[in-house]
């Protein structure tokens, strides 16, 4: 397994395995020959020969890797539940750079959203060389590589934008095009307030009510963290992110704690959108959310695409906590009903008890 030849299965052909939809597992071995096996929330594909794993806590896996660099990871395709073994060799740990920033922002955004910012902290991204990648059952076939070409849709989108003659029409054209051209049936567009501390909704599509005027603190929740950091955040299975956070909380007895709002002094705009992980996925109701890097003096957009499955759930989109009499969620079990209630209240034009502002997640 020390060969430098390409993996039997190209990592690009099983890209969906690296979206964090189904947990992976990693086995390492101590110098005395004791194997250690644990779960991973996500394996990041770095390039065709490398993957990255987040390093948050010093644990047995890491202790083993520092003494014996060989590991095996099993990833699972959310499309067909095929399992793949990756033989790995630990190379290095990155503590800065584009990959580190991308992983950290996603971790921080989810941690902020689930009230775990005081627990989850990225120390580094461990980089592994992929020595081999193969189906768990040698008889299984790898996923076919599918490349989606959006060039014609982008051309049409650009033409529609070019024909706009004002901000209002740009908003309408953008939101409509996201649905018509790209399949994002759920979307909303946000802009910063004058102080740059909050984003507020300018328009939306796909919801019962527009939600225009509702707000999110910059630096809080997935949208707020993405806006503050100017980083793309993609969440593919938020329900599992919540379960994971709850599991950590259950072992620590950690209280539900909110992060202070970010200052937002560097923010100009952010954009986010949501869509199903894969239209062919066997997992119903799973949506992925993209939060785009913000650009100065612009606007924030959030979209989500309607799942093709008739069993799709309505994704939870919005949030909690009015300012002034801000509610504190002391237990994880408060989160789901709170977010659902806030979603409904937001898109029905209602205020949460104790205040007028709603925070998106």
């Amino acid at each position, binding site marked *: 397994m020390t060969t430098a030849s390409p993996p039997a299965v190209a990592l690009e052909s099983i890209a969906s395995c690296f979206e964090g939809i189904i947990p992976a*597992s990693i086995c390492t*071995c101590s110098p005395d020959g004791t194997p250690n096996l644990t*779960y991973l*929330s996500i394996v990041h594909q770095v390039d065709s020969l490398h993957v990255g794993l987040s390093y948050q806590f010093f644990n047995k896996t890491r202790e083993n890797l520092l003494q014996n660099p*060989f590991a095996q990871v099993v990833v699972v395709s959310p499309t067909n539940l095929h399992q793949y073994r990756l033989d790995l060799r630990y190379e290095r740990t990155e503590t800065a750079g584009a990959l580190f920033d991308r992983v950290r922002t996603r971790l921080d955004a989810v941690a902020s959203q689930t009230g775990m910012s005081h627990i989850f902290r990225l120390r580094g991204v461990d980089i592994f060389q992929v020595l081999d990648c193969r189906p*768990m059952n040698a008889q*299984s076939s790898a996923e076919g590589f599918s490349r989606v070409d959006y060039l014609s849709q982008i051309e049409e989108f650009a033409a529609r934008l070019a024909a706009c003659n004002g901000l209002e029409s740009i908003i309408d054209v953008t939101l409509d095009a996201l649905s018509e051209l790209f399949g994002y049936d759920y979307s909303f567009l946000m802009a910063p307030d004058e102080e740059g501390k909050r984003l507020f909704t300018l328009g939306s599509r796909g919801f019962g009510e527009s939600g225009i005027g509702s707000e999110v603190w910059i630096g809080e929740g997935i949208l707020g963290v993405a806006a503050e950091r100017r980083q793309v955040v993609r969440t593919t299975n938020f329900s599992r992110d919540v379960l994971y956070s709850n599991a950590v909380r259950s072992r620590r007895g950690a209280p539900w704690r909110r992060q202070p709002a970010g200052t937002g002094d560097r923010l100009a705009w952010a954009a986010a959108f949501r869509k199903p992980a894969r239209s062919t996925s066997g997992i*119903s109701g799973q949506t992925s959310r993209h939060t785009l890097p913000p650009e100065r003096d612009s606007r924030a957009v959030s979209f989500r695409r309607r799942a093709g499955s008739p069993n799709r759930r309505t994704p939870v989109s919005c949030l909690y906590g009015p300012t002034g009499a801000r509610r504190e969620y002391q237990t994880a079990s408060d989160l789901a009903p709170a977010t659902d209630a806030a979603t409904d209240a937001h898109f029905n034009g209602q205020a949460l008890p104790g205040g007028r502002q709603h925070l998106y997640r």
Partner: protein
Amino acid sequence: MESGDPVSIGDELKTFLEGPVSVLVGTRDSRLIPEITRAWGPRVFEDRRRISLCVPIATSRKTLDNLEANGEIAVTFSLPTNYHTFQLKGRHATAAEPDSTDLQAVERHRDAFAMVNERLGQHRRQVEAFWRGEIESSPALVKIFFAPEQVFDQTPGPGAGRKL
């Protein structure tokens, strides 16, 4: 691994291990290179000191070779609905042919695993792809049994790996 006697598995842990959990087996070869395979039908023996599980032969040849060579084993049990996870380690795992009781345990486990995953939004036929893919080329299963000497709480977080 530190030498140790087999641990006694209490009622609560027994219920967890035999529940609708995801079960993975970790072994290693003579070069200390690890190998993972998925297992089904875990059973805690009446003496509460031994555990058996079944692995598909098509996906587990390296695992079985490793166990025959050195017997070192780590098995992780994780409940998909809340990520509560335990890892059990032993040093003298052996393999045998499963009997009808073992195969019934496999069927019960697969059924329970599919049901719990349905609650998470996965269609049953998709969950069934897990084991159908594993036995695609051969339906044969092999039973592994071992006496755990160490039990760890492997639930995610900074305290993961706490020895019980």
